[in-house]
């Protein structure tokens, strides 16, 4: 045992000596951006099909669009990209885009109006998951070639009725609005799939970056497009490495082997913020956490009860404890950074106020079930709510289940209360207004499972018409005001208790500037980054 003890002591001294000589921090090459990120949600990179976060990040950097958002000025909204200008017809249904001249795809082919028409028609005809972003304007597989057509250097799209131009253009900034190289894509067509199988793993864009490779669950590598019309990006190579563990990401960052870590948990963010050469940046994302009350329930459908629940949430307590740094209080259906978003958060944790409202409604000994999907933070929110409700005399039974179990019941309008999250689908206020505050037919037969208002059997009491009016309003400022009015009414009358908006925290080496994950409205951009 003496020898063993000596060995141990020796080893300990060895380690201690080495620690004091602390190895130097490595550094990534000046022209290369290296990011650690969870990319296991990427299922396809065909922009007509891609609908996941990490996949949208790839598309945003590889493909140009007719109009797009400037990562350094997201608040400005859409700006010219492959289209330099556009005109709206008298009847408001046709928009004519003039294409930018002299732009080429990565293949060397020129970007033409024909490519733009093909890209949008293709997305409509393939009818993959995100196709609704385009088909909501009345485009169908049958009419696509008439409603979306190229003429010389212009592209014309004709919608089924007049919509706010900002609504149409916002939708065209989404991933599905990417312009693909028709010649390259069709050269790789298999069995009439319009190049879908090929584009799932290859790219044919004109954006600031070319995709070199995507290895599922492993890495994405891109190299800069020196001929990019906006100028060659400073970062000549971008590598996104799939690193699942927060602790591993933090180590890589602190060692200087990566420039950006995107999935650090609150503990690692706190730790990394103390490290030399590391800074933390916050960006608001689109995901909202909410509780919704099923209006089929006789008690839950009373206006005072709907109000009462909004005082039964310990917003600040949760934000400052287990949600720390990852969510901020937000009580409106449009996430902050969206056009028309409201900053009004009038509700606070107030058991007494809730009790008064419940008493006014004549509610006593209420027992309800809340469905929660199996995710740590949601279960914790559920428990906090259960605790507060108990103080107001409401018994809450939490049912935890998989997405399939809980969602199926929610979509079938069977749950008393649902606790969940919702993220916008495209960068226009219509996405969430049309989900939370729109329900033209509240009957069971309507089966409008995509509408959250319908899932909760909520007849919106006039908001449906207001949403319809806002989506066709062409004056931007008036349109913003309309959404703010809708949200003000929604806060007071709806059965939705919107609680939090997600924050994404990136940890960066401190020489990285102009990093953008796209806020709530779009995805990450790499071309403006310098170091």
């Amino acid at each position: 045992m003496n020898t063993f003890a000596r060995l141990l002591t020796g080893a300990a001294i060895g380690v201690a000596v080495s620690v004091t000589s602390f190895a130097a921090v490595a550094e990534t090459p000046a022209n290369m951006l290296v990011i650690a990120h969870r990319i296991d949600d990427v299922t396809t990179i065909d922009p007509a099909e891609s609908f996941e976060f990490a996949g949208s990040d790839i598309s945003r950097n590889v493909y140009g669009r007719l109009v797009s958002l400037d990562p350094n000025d997201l608040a400005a909204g859409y700006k010219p990209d492959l289209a330099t200008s556009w005109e709206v017809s008298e009847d408001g249904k046709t928009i004519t885009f003039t294409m930018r001249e002299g732009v080429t795809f990565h293949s060397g082919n020129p970007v033409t109006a024909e490519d733009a028409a093909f890209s949008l028609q293709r997305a409509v005809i393939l009818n993959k998951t995100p196709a609704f972003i385009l088909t909501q304007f009345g485009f169908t597989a049958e009419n696509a070639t008439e409603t979306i057509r190229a003429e010389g250097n212009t592209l014309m799209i004709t919608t089924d009725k007049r919509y706010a131009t900002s609504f149409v253009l916002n939708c065209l900034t989404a991933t599905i609005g990417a312009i693909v190289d028709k010649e390259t894509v069709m050269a790789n067509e298999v069995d009439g799939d319009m190049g879908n199988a090929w584009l799932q793993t290859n790219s044919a864009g004109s954006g600031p970056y070319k995709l070199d490779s995507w290895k599922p669950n492993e890495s994405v590598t891109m190299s800069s497009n020196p001929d990019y019309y906006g100028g060659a990006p400073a970062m000549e190579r971008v590598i996104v490495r799939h690193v699942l563990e927060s602790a591993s990401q933090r180590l890589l960052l602190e060692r200087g082997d990566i420039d950006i870590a995107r999935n650090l948990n609150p503990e690692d963010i706190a730790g990394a913020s103390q490290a030399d050469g590391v800074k933390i940046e916050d960006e608001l994302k689109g995901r909202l956490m909410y509780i919704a009350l099923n209006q089929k329930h006789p008690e839950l459908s009373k206006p005072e009860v709907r109000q009462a629940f909004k005082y039964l949430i310990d917003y600040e307590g949760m934000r400052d404890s287990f949600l720390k740094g990852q969510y901020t209080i937000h009580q409106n259906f449009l996430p902050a950074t969206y056009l028309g978003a409201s900053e009004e958060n009038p509700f606070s944790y107030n058991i007494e106020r809730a009790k008064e409202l419940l008493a006014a409604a004549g509610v006593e000994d209420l027992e309800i079930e809340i469905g929660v999907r199996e995710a740590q933070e949601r279960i914790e929110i559920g428990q906090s709510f259960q605790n507060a409700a108990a103080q107001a005399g409401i018994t809450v039974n939490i049912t935890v289940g998989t997405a399939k179990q809980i969602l199926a019941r929610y979509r079938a309008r069977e749950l008393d209360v649902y606790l969940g999250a919702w993220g916008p689908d495209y960068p226009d206020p219509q996405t969430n207004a049309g989900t939370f505050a729109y329900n033209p037919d509240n009957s069971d037969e309507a089966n409008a499972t995509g509408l959250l208002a319908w899932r909760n059997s909520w007849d919106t009491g006039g908001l449906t018409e207001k949403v319809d009016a806002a989506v066709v309003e062409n004056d931007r400022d008036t349109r913003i005001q309309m959404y703010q009015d809708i949200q003000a009414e929604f806060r007071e009358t709806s059965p939705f208790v919107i609680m939090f908006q997600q924050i994404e925290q990136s940890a960066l080496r401190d020489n990285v500037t102009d990093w953008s994950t796209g806020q709530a409205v779009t995805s990450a951009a790499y071309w403006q980054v310098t170091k």
Partner: protein
Amino acid sequence: MALTGDNGRGRVRASLPPWIKTTALTIGSIAMTMLGLLFVTFIIGRVMPIDPVLAIVGERASQSTYDAVFLELGLDKPLVVQFGYYIWDVLHLDFGTSLLNARPVSEDIARVFPATLELATLGIIIGIVIGVPLGVVAAARKGSWIDQVARVLALVGYSMPIFWLGLMGLLIFYGILGWVGGPGRVGIFYVDVVPSVTGLILVDAALDGNWDVFKNAFSHIILPASLLGYFSLAYISRMTRSFMLEQLSAEYITTARVKGMSEWDVIWKHAFKNIRVQLITVIALSYATLLEGSVLTEIIFSWPGIGSYITTALLSADMNAVLGGTVVVGLIFILLNIFSDLLYKVFDPRAK
């Protein structure tokens, strides 16, 4: 092989039947085991509380998109027919397309398996090279300090969570000391530098003559491989020790010692020779476990191997990938079992 003639002990065999019979039995049992495995994986795939269609199209898809994918997957057909198709496809090494990345699962597995193979092989080599001698010496010097060390090592190996040990290893040897490479198979600057021939990055780098990549890849693999090596070492040394103790207490050892044979010869030539067969099984089993994918190790070290592949697939309801991965892992188990059986026959005269 000398099927007829002297086999060293003066007995002569003249006919083939036992060999043929054994081979046929082996093939038959492989086939039955595989069929059972396929059946179980298939059933698991169907009763999982996950909707594969929803997993592909997502919650927001329209009903028409949903229906198209439902038909595409053949989910409208009776279960028996679906199972039939499944067997037929697997026989053609076709595990279908990954629901999540639209690539053939067999291609995915061919890509991720070499990563696990490389890691597990280095791990088991470390486990054998240290574990076997350690076990032998611990048995020979029972109660000595080296026996204590071996026991502590084994105990720690059994009780320490691999997750914690892996992170600590990374923190100390990569984070603080900077002696080894971090998570991943190779440094980020070396991604895609050498052409992939075998998929084993050390071998590919050597074939390409790119020693920078080789060194870098080695610096990345050494820590996870040592970790896996440590866990198999703990098991191998403990088993070696107990096998050896059993032998050393046998009468023939006493006889050998009485005859004045040197201690070295007693241990290595007599006792150790007699535990080789048992050891082979232990090592094969250990190796199979490592190949099956040491999920946590792969996750901590961002090692793109079969363990993390199956886990990711499972978490995202990619049933084709889960089934494909499970079948491959099952096949490895079966093959390693047969391999150890065969070695048994080579080393153990009684098994002939």
